[in-house]
């Protein structure tokens, strides 16, 4: 992982030009992403849910790992910004013919692509592309290995802000498979940067990273203790496909200990938000009555996902274009 996450993501003026990780972004910038997303929510409520910001630009969705929801919300976000969108499931095309990642991307750039939305099973793959392969194409990280999933974290932050108005004073619990979750890593960073009081992780040791405290979180092994006085509960999905070896006795055992049921929800503050990045495993991480209950904001998270993705796409494209502009030395002015 490059240590210069911040430098790689920002222009000389401190504007976003790639969106790779929450790490390296400060509170002011994260807040601006949320404010911009707020305005895009309003666009989604209009008769014509489209703005012309990325008109004539080409966005390529490069998914080296399958995903339905993330890819569709990115696609919809790009289309609402008036971009032309190309969806490529790389697992099934070029790489199976032996083409290298760099060659695939250079070919796509030659098709005049302006932005790559990238999901990859290798941590740091989007950083590598932004740094070494196509630095003049805006790169949006749609999830890399176990590293980060920054747009998911930001849509969660937007959801929390909508309901709680502010981050200060909040206690947030993240429950479940933290070890395999890039979402959790991005969430912990974003929550701490935005200034919540406390981030808690509730999980068995086998589903926690080696030094969980180093991430800036307090660890609990029991829901009864971890959920006490909590304002927001973020449930994580059990990542069957990423589990190697037997980390869990069984799903039903996990549900008994860590599944969010109505009884366990009662330990948290009254009115605590229930969130989940989806897809939900009902009866594994969460009881249906809770997932569909009055404290659940899970479907609102999906709507917010489109707005947040529109925000980071337009901000990164703006920074990227700005940079191309200064590279060609043209003047910049307007009223």
């Amino acid at each position, binding site marked *: 992982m490059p240590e210069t996450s911040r430098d790689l993501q920002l222009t000389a003026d401190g*504007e976003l030009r790639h969106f790779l990780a929450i790490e390296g972004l400060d509170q002011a910038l994260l807040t*601006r992403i949320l*404010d*911009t997303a*707020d*305005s895009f*929510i*309003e*666009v989604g409520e*209009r*008769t*014509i849910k*489209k*703005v*012309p*910001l990325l008109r004539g630009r080409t966005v390529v969705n490069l998914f080296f790992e399958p995903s339905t929801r993330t890819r569709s919300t990115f696609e919809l976000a790009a289309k609402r910004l008036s971009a032309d969108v190309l969806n490529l499931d790389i697992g099934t095309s070029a790489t199976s013919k032996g083409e290298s990642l760099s060659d695939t991307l250079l070919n796509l750039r030659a098709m005049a692509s302006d932005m790559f939305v990238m999901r990859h099973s290798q941590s740091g793959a989007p950083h590598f592309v932004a740094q070494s392969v196509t630095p003049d194409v805006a790169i949006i990280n749609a999830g890399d290995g176990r590293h980060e999933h920054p747009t998911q974290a930001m849509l969660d932050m937007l959801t929390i802000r909508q309901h709680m108005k502010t981050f200060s004073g909040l206690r947030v619990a993240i429950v479940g498979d933290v070890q395999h979750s890039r979402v959790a890593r991005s969430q912990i960073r974003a929550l701490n940067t935005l200034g919540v009081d406390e981030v808690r992780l509730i999980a068995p040791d086998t589903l926690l990273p080696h030094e969980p405290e180093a991430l800036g979180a307090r660890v609990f092994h029991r829901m009864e203790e971890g959920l006490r006085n909590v304002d927001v509960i973020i449930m994580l999905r059990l990542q069957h496909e990423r589990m190697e070896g037997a980390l869990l006795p069984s799903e039903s055992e996990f549900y008994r200990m860590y599944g969010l049921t109505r009884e366990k929800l009662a330990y948290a503050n009254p009115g605590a938000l229930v969130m989940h990045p989806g897809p939900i495993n009902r009866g594994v991480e969460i009881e249906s009555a809770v997932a569909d209950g009055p404290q659940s904001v899970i479907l609102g998270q999906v709507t917010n996902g489109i707005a947040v993705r529109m925000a980071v796409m*337009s*901000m990164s*494209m*703006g*920074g990227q*274009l*700005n940079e191309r*502009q200064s590279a060609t030395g*043209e003047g*910049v*002015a*307007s*009223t």
Partner: protein
Amino acid sequence: MQDIEQLLDRMTDDLREHINARGLSSLCPVGIRTGGVWVAQALRERLGIQAECGELDITFYRDDFSRIGLHPRVSPSRLPFETEGQHLLLVDDVIMSGRTIRAAMNELFDYGRPESITLAALVDLGRRELPIQPDVTGTHETLGPRQRIKLRGPESLELAVEEVPDA
């Protein structure tokens, strides 16, 4: 610089005349953020318009995105009425190139097809780059090459000419 109250009174008279001549009923006011909203509110009060004031943020419609990127401050547009089939009163504090008004009209059409749009501007600086003219104007001003004009508010509105520092 002239007294704002007088400019607003004159605009109100001209708007009444325009409304009567065109037979416009129930005009809905829409101000362009930020100064345009203040002027729209003042005109709404003077004209005794019932409809609440709409607020447009044209950030997502600016034609200079590819040159200067997304503006750092953006807040949601808010139109508290149906625009479809409605007569709209679009208001800005200052008109110059005409590009802001073009962006605002593009945005308005994404809410629906208005029956008509009347354009009012407090100050017209000339130097148009697009064929867009206000129906009602408070005053015409000419600025030096390094000057710009700014409306301060919202408590008491005040026009101020500022010197632009050298780039």
